[in-house]
């Protein structure tokens, strides 16, 4: 069969539910936008509190995305390439943060890394203080975002297969070289998709952060936390910042996605 695509039409009715789905997702965001006095918008989103929170959000989300890449790439590679039986279980466990309500995720993180947590005494002895620090924010974001990266990347690795890796090895490339110069470059689109999903999820993270890291301006109060706070006293500002968040996310997704398919 030729590479050229030959098209079969879609049933016409299918556009109705598809449109409905699109509207269901987009309408609420659009409705949010109608809630806002656009003349105040610039002022609202450039207030010191907003700028501080946005800066913190971008910094922590970037850090947690990097951490996700650092931890998630090796995990995805091992999951995709090993054939051990226990990996089936491991693959299910990695999805846990996806099911846990973020607040429970925060409680779980406290149970593990809090002062009285499993590793608390150990961390204390090393002089590491995660409570109420920006590190805690990054950890919370990483915890909830890691599955996104791992799932996307593992799928891409399995799809790509191992043929080029074998060729590279037979040309004299050591395993690390194969990974760096062949395996990963080949799954770049999948990796980009995974990183975008992880970044987006980090940017929106609220429950685990507020539970595990607390909420202090400039240190732990990310944009979602500020929005939650302002919701009561300054609904306009909250809505404006929500839209800001949406815009930031769309820009990031737009910048990364065209190069690879999601």
């Amino acid at each position, binding site marked *: 069969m030729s590479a050229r695509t030959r098209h079969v039409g879609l049933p016409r009715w299918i556009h109705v539910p598809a449109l409905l789905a699109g509207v269901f997702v987009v309408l609420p965001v659009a409705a949010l936008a109608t809630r806002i006095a656009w003349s105040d918008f610039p002022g609202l989103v450039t207030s010191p509190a907003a700028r501080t929170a946005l800066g913190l959000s971008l910094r922590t989300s970037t850090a947690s995305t990097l951490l996700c890449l650092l931890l998630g790439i090796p995990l995805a590679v091992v999951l995709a390439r090993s054939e051990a039986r226990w990996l089936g279980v491991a693959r299910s466990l990695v999805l846990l943060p996806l099911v846990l309500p973020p607040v429970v995720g925060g409680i779980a993180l406290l149970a593990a890394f809090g002062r009285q947590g499993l590793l608390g005494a150990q961390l204390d002895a090393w002089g590491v203080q995660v409570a109420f620090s920006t590190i805690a924010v990054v950890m919370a974001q990483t915890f909830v975002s890691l599955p996104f990266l791992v799932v996307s990347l593992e799928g891409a690795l399995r799809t790509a297969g191992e*043929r*080029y890796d*074998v*060729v*590279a*090895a*037979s*040309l*004299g*490339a*050591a*395993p690390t*070289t*194969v990974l760096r*110069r*062949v395996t990963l*470059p*080949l799954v*770049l689109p999948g990796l980009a998709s995974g990183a975008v999903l992880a970044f987006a999820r980090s940017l929106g993270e609220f429950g685990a952060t507020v539970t595990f890291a607390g909420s202090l301006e400039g240190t732990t109060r990310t944009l979602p936390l500020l929005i939650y706070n302002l919701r009561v006293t300054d609904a306009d500002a909250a809505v404006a910042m929500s839209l800001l968040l949406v815009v930031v996310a769309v820009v990031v997704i737009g910048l990364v996605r065209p190069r690879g398919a999601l």
Partner: protein
Amino acid sequence: MSLVVDVQVADRDVEIAFEVAAGETVAILGPNGAGKSTTLDVVGGLLRPDSGRVVLDGKELTGADRWVAPHARRTALLAQDPLLFPHLSVLENVAFGPRSRGAGRAAARETALAWLAEVDATGLAERRPAQLSGGQAQRVAVARALAADPQLLLLDEPMAALDIAVAPALRQLLRTVLADRTAVVVTHHVLDALLLADRVVVLEGGRVVEQGPAGVVLSRPRSAFAARFAGLNLVSGVATPDGVRRPDGSVLHGTATDPAPREGSEAVAVFRPSAVAVHREPPGGSPRNVLSVRVEELEPLGDVVRVRAGDLAADVTVAAVAELGLAPGQEVSFVVKATEVDVYPR
């Protein structure tokens, strides 16, 4: 850089031993599933045999308690699919081997350019693999394998994916390249074996069934596969004064050649399909061998049609096929003159 292979892979029922002298090219022939790719994989370090050893130039690569990783073997495996790295340019593809073996960027580039010139692909250096035709890609793959400076080159059906237009040029290139190299080539084409290899090793069912100089094996095959491969009919049996007696008692008359087989010893009778005439009814007259067969396949070969019946084949014209109304299942007579049949010891 001689190679000694003596390996067993139990779950694939493969037990193979052969040697390749320094600078020699050996062709591995055999039907599907005979163990050809398995052999290359074992030598290349992609598959660990159950027992046995692979020794390259005195250095044990695979052995009872020895295992050299694929990337450390200095063997290069070229599969039938060129598998150029799609994210690298042609030049970067060819430079990949030198870089992996530790060469600097500039040195690797120079090596790559030299090899690209060798395969007449200098003009393609900056292209992506997706922008190459099948033949160009295969040429670049050859350059890439050679640029890795392997002590041993392993080629697995390097021309199977090529269309008829580019195969000859690549065959010519490989002929030059392999002339003074140690190499093992898996092929399904008699011409490749003849033009590229010094010696051939014939595998069947995971075992070596015949080996020897390429010309000898292909012109005087002793195994059924080698005969089919060389496009010859082969009938084996016991030598009689004027031919070969088959297990069913019938005698195929022929001419004994050079070392005439001792009467009563195992012998083979070999003749060309084009020497076989096809008749609907057994013809009269005597100096001819008449074999009653049932037609199994009609296979177009250029301007003739090969009529297959069991192990035997006859080449007839398209017009004759139409005239005789040949079709699979039909009972016909294959007729061949005794002077066309060579008889020699098995």
